């Protein structure tokens, strides 16, 4: 977990997509929205999940590791940048390897694009656009101390489990206090698809 980072609390999210519109206003990728907003409980409730780049720390950025063109760079402060425009060949390795489903791709332009934590803003101490406007604080930018001052007793976790592996990220999720020692489930293994048990 980085010092100043993003904290995500899907429980507060109202699915309004302010983050989606705000992302487009960020000057570093003006006009293109990188954030994902999914309604994860379709048909049952209006629950939603915003997904920004989690800026994986260990292993360092799977997207960068699988990149055949060394196009994804990680800055000294732990921010995983979007693909270098001169190097990216648009192979989509990062798109499909990312365990969080973050990178997007412009196939015509042969270019990957993804959340870079609004580097143009965070580099100057401003919060990223999505966290700046988020009406609910589901996306929060700051230090863990600042978060806990605003939300007494809140706890966060920065480790996700995917099957047998764990991924520690620069961006953290809000979890209940009794769950803080456990990794957050990443969704793998998948045990059931559309009512069918797929455990082998």
């Amino acid at each position, binding site marked *: 977990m980085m010092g100043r980072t993003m904290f995500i609390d899907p*429980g507060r999210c109202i699915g309004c997509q302010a983050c989606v519109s705000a992302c487009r206003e960020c000057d570093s990728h003006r006009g293109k929205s990188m954030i994902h907003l999914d309604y994860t409980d379709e048909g049952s409730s209006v629950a939603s999940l915003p997904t920004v780049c989690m800026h994986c720390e260990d292993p360092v950025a799977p997207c960068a590791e699988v990149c055949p063109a060394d196009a994804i760079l990680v800055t000294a402060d732990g921010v995983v940048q979007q693909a270098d425009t001169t190097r990216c060949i648009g192979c989509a390795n990062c798109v499909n390897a990312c365990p969080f489903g973050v990178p997007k791709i412009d196939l015509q*332009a042969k270019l990957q694009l993804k959340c870079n934590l609004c580097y143009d803003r965070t580099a100057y101490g401003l919060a990223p656009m999505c966290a700046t406007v988020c009406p609910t604080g589901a996306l929060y930018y700051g230090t863990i101390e600042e978060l806990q001052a605003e939300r007494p007793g809140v706890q966060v976790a920065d480790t996700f489990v995917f099957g047998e592996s764990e991924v520690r990220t620069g961006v953290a999720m809000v979890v209940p206090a009794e769950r803080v020692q456990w990794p957050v489930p990443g969704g793998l293994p998948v045990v059931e698809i559309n009512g069918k048990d797929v455990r082998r």
Partner: protein
Amino acid sequence: MRPYGGRVTEPPEPAAAEQPEAGARTGTTGGTGTTGGPDGRRPGRGAAAAARAARSLPQSVSGRAALAGAVVSGLLILAIVFGSRLLHDFDSALLPYAVATVFLAFGVAYRYTVWVSAPGARRLFRNGWRSLFSAENFRRTPTALPKMIATYLGFQKFLGARSHARWAAHQLIFWGCILAALITFPLTWGWFTFTSDSGAGPGYAMRIWGIKVLGFDSLSFIGWVMFHGLDLAAVLVIPGAGYFLWRRMKDRGAITGQRFAYDMVPLLALIVISVTGLLLTFSSIFLHGGGYEFLAVLHMVSVVFTLIYIPFGKFFHIVQRPAAVGMQLFKYTARQDDEVFACRRCEEPIDTGPYVENLRGTMRDLELGFDAWAEYCPRCKRVLRGNAYLTQVKKGFK
């Protein structure tokens, strides 16, 4: 069915939270306890991390890369020696340039070897070449490769999709550099010579490896072009590089994360080379050689610097870019066989089957333990993770 009208969630009941009716469910088999707990955190992390660290640049890779560099630069030296007819045609004034190209050859070969040794690039490198050399591929679509080379490497259509202005500027730089390279490299190596029977023109003969290929009058249009090819290249490069430089100072998207050494230096180098090159011509025509010496040194220093910089900075993309053709050919081959891989949950296409298998292999090479995840589309990954959070972490506010 949800008991309607009676939804009281006080206190929150994470254990009793509803399971989604449709879609996929996720869970760690045997409950969260198996991987949980302060002691059980990060299983096998130490070993994996060590393996990963050791992989960063193994001895064997750097050794192999150095060997490749040595072989390639050795071959280049031989080519120079024999191409210039045992240095008969070699222009000793151009020696610094020739030495720089030898270093360039070493650097590129070294860097290239290191690059294609990394798992992601290595697998794509193999698959790309395999598609390229596939006889069946060639039979089925003989035009695919030339078309791809023309659109991706020549006309760089993909840049047009990023921005028309950037495409135009890049095309100027690209063709300018191609022109300059075609003229200067053979000249430097002593492969080209221009000889005049009369000693001072206007009739000239152009020779490659000593063999006359073209005779022309230096006062004719062709002659003018032959002698001013480098000036033309400079005229192409300057506006292109100038546009990029201007953009790097003005466009906030470009400025974000921009580094001087990586992003600015190459542009400045191109501009310095082009401007000093033009000034050399200017000096010889209008100033009767005034300042020529100084300009020549400046020009040479900037060129040598740029050549040596190529393998290590932004210009390495020139070497890397053909990988885009390999990648595309690899995917194209599988698409022709209708090998499209669909997401295991939503059944929307993800990419070609061989591509997904290639990616899983890369992830296994890298010891990323979640390669099975590649069979789900990014949206399903997020939805499954969101669902897991809802059912296993917390459903709502608390």
